[in-house]
């Protein structure tokens, strides 16, 4: 069983003190992120994840974030194969926007995108957006989020794969019989559709959800996500999520903050130095050690079925990314735990997912 590895990029790294030692420019730099994404591609990672925040307060911590959607856009032209994921919440926005932006990004990248559908803990956005969330009741919230995702998928599917006909001779640019208004009119959303773009190369962008902070929402997350991010490897949590997914094909990736160095002592000294500068919260499971120890840890977690892979959160950019790509990946490869080449061109292929059929495939017009 192959390991799946994603790399999250934000700020100057995921340790709250990262900016004190990082060589990245202080002002958010797309060039720096482009270089990191190319490194990740050189390591043949599954995907780069954008928008997962660094926690803390701005006076002490670099929590600055470029909007993950244009940031994802800026990585498309400088990479060829790696998956590109961006976080955007289901709150304070409309499904049509999400469907249109991710369809665009998926077309531009020839099928390499994932949407990290952020939900639940979106309260910090309230004063910025200036309007209340639809609901704060958890079950109602899940019902709305589920319907939001349904609408997005209906819009992505509203053009069948054959709809973009391009028959120059007959003059049929689009086959109207294969483009379907979705006429969605349920509890929370009323959207006519269709989307104004052909079906994306992946059919649907990969849908990434975070394991919810409250157990009661876990059922919901398991029934819609393609990829679930859990906080640190956990066989118990994996088993629970898989049971709730009830046979759906999901990948479970464990978030892991990485502080790496050549020797175990050096790694612990580095971690201690960073912790002394800014005391970290308890947001993320963390690994401190050598690249070889990290590969051992991967193997142990795999044996214990504690995850299908990892979402690596480098403590400091670019240092920990360099160690992951230049040391961890070659070791994982030498132990046949990780790919040497991509076997496909889309993120779905990297993750081992089939391309979904359009909900409307073969449907009559109307």
């Amino acid at each position: 069983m192959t390991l799946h590895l994603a790399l999250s990029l934000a700020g100057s790294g995921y340790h709250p003190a990262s900016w004190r030692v990082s060589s990245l420019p202080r002002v958010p730099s797309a060039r720096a992120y482009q270089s990191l994404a190319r490194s990740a591609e050189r390591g043949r990672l599954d995907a780069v994840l954008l928008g997962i925040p660094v926690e803390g307060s701005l006076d002490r911590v670099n929590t600055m974030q470029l909007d993950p959607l244009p940031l994802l856009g800026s990585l498309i032209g400088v990479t060829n194969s790696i998956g590109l994921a961006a976080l955007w919440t289901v709150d304070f926005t409309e499904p049509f926007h999400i469907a249109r932006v991710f369809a665009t990004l998926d077309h531009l990248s020839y099928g390499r995108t994932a949407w990290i559908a952020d939900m639940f803990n979106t309260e910090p956005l309230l004063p910025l957006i200036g309007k209340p969330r639809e609901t704060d009741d958890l079950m109602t919230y899940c019902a709305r989020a589920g319907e939001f995702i349904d609408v997005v998928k209906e819009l992505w599917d509203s053009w069948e794969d054959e709809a973009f006909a391009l028959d120059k001779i007959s003059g049929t640019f689009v086959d109207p019989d294969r483009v379907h208004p979705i006429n969605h009119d349920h509890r929370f959303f009323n959207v006519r559709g269709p989307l104004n773009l052909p079906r994306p190369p992946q059919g649907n962008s990969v849908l990434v959800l975070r394991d919810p902070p409250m157990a009661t929402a876990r059922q919901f997350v398991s029934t819609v996500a393609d990829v679930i991010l859990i906080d640190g490897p956990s066989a118990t949590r994996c088993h629970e999520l898989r049971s709730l997914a009830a046979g759906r094909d999901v990948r479970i990736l464990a978030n892991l903050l990485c502080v790496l160095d050549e020797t175990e002592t050096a790694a612990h000294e580095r971690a201690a130095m960073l912790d002394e500068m800014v005391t970290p919260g308890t947001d993320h499971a963390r690994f401190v050690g050598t690249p070889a120890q990290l590969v051992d840890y991967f193997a142990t977690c795999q044996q214990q079925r504690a995850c299908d892979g990892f979402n690596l959160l480098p403590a400091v950019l670019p240092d920990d990314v360099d160690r992951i790509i230049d040391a961890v990946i070659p070791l994982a490869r030498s132990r046949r735990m990780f790919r040497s080449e991509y076997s496909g061109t889309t993120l779905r292929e990297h993750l081992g997912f089939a391309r979904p059929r359009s909900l409307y495939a073969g449907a009559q017009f109307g």
Partner: protein
Amino acid sequence: MMRKQLHLGLFIYPAGHHIASWRHPAVDAGSIAGMDYYRRAAQSAERGKFDLFFIGDMLAAREKDGRVVREGGLNNIDSISVTSAISAVTECLGLVATLSTTYNEPYYIAERFASLDHISNGRAGWNIITTANDDAAYNFGQKSHMEKTLRYERAKEFVDICTALWDSWQDDALVADASRGLFADPDRIHPIDHHGRFFSVRGALKLPRLPQGWPVLIQAGGSPSGTEFAAMVGEAIFAAQSKLDEARAFRNAVMERMPKYGRSPDSVKILPGLSPIVASTEQEARRKEAELDELILPAVGVWMLSEQMQFRLYGYDLDGKLPSEEIRASGQAFTPRVVNLMDRADREGLTVRACANIVAKSRSHGTFVGTVEGLVDYMQLWLDTGGCDGFNIMPAYFPDELDVFVDEVVPALQRRGLFRTEYAGTMLRDHLGLPYPQHQAY
């Protein structure tokens, strides 16, 4: 003193601005949503030292009687995604994306353009639209599209919030002083605490001040409300006049209104759309034009004309005169483009088919068919007689016609001193000769 020079935008459109462009043998229509298509166009424009790359936005599929139009008319893909993608494969080209103030929230839009400006090192422009097509409403859970006056009131408040958010960090707020452990200085970051008719936004932005201060604010079109709005906030205007006297009148109308908003009339650049077809001889250019026009399906032209005029022309004789009296009597609020076309039809006795062809060929922006030198004369005349500050170039089809412009027209313009030979700066404000917004005092 150096003579006044032209500003040039590349107005991108899937396959090309000629409606039948996708049927042209040289066009690979299947490629129009992928990165390679946009990279190629943007890099050509940068090779030609264009000021900017511009892409529009629509929030509903193009339909006729409830079905997607068979014969053409794919919408643009999302404009922020395209411009951010292009930022990574160009160095100097300005990047203008289009987002609607009617169907978005100001914080998100302020953040998105702040990010585009940071990502591109100061090359972002925002084409501010209120969305004109009614169909968009049905994709956003609304029963009907917001009425025009209200849309522009909302747009005004929307833009005010965005500019306040872009000013919410003082230039020196990002301290990053390791010795004090101070990353950003909260005393130099200011919540905006906006409470207005449409929005309540506390702020502040989560990003430092933009390389350009604000993205260049751009307005398109020229209805009375639009003209007023352009005079109030527009730093560049994408105009649609196809006749020199009309263009001059529009430009004067905008500039006359600017002082009442405390703005100097020279702080706006007006760029009408221009779709050129050029060749080494007049005859060859006409042949190229005819080759394209032959690809237009009659149904397409009549559909586009009916949409623009909000008047169903499907039953009318294609070779009869445009029924402009009936159209006028239908009492719709016509856009200036439509009014211009009806006036021209009356003046020249144009048929429905002729009008349909005009719309289909250029989407009723200006066109020029002739030699390179003829086009340069035409552009110089418009520039020197106050018709414009430059043009938004609308190639008939991509990429060939853009390359013709870049490789033949641009050098001819440069030989006459009408266009730059090198970029003078790296930011869009430098190219357009626009001032950098000064930070408001705290």
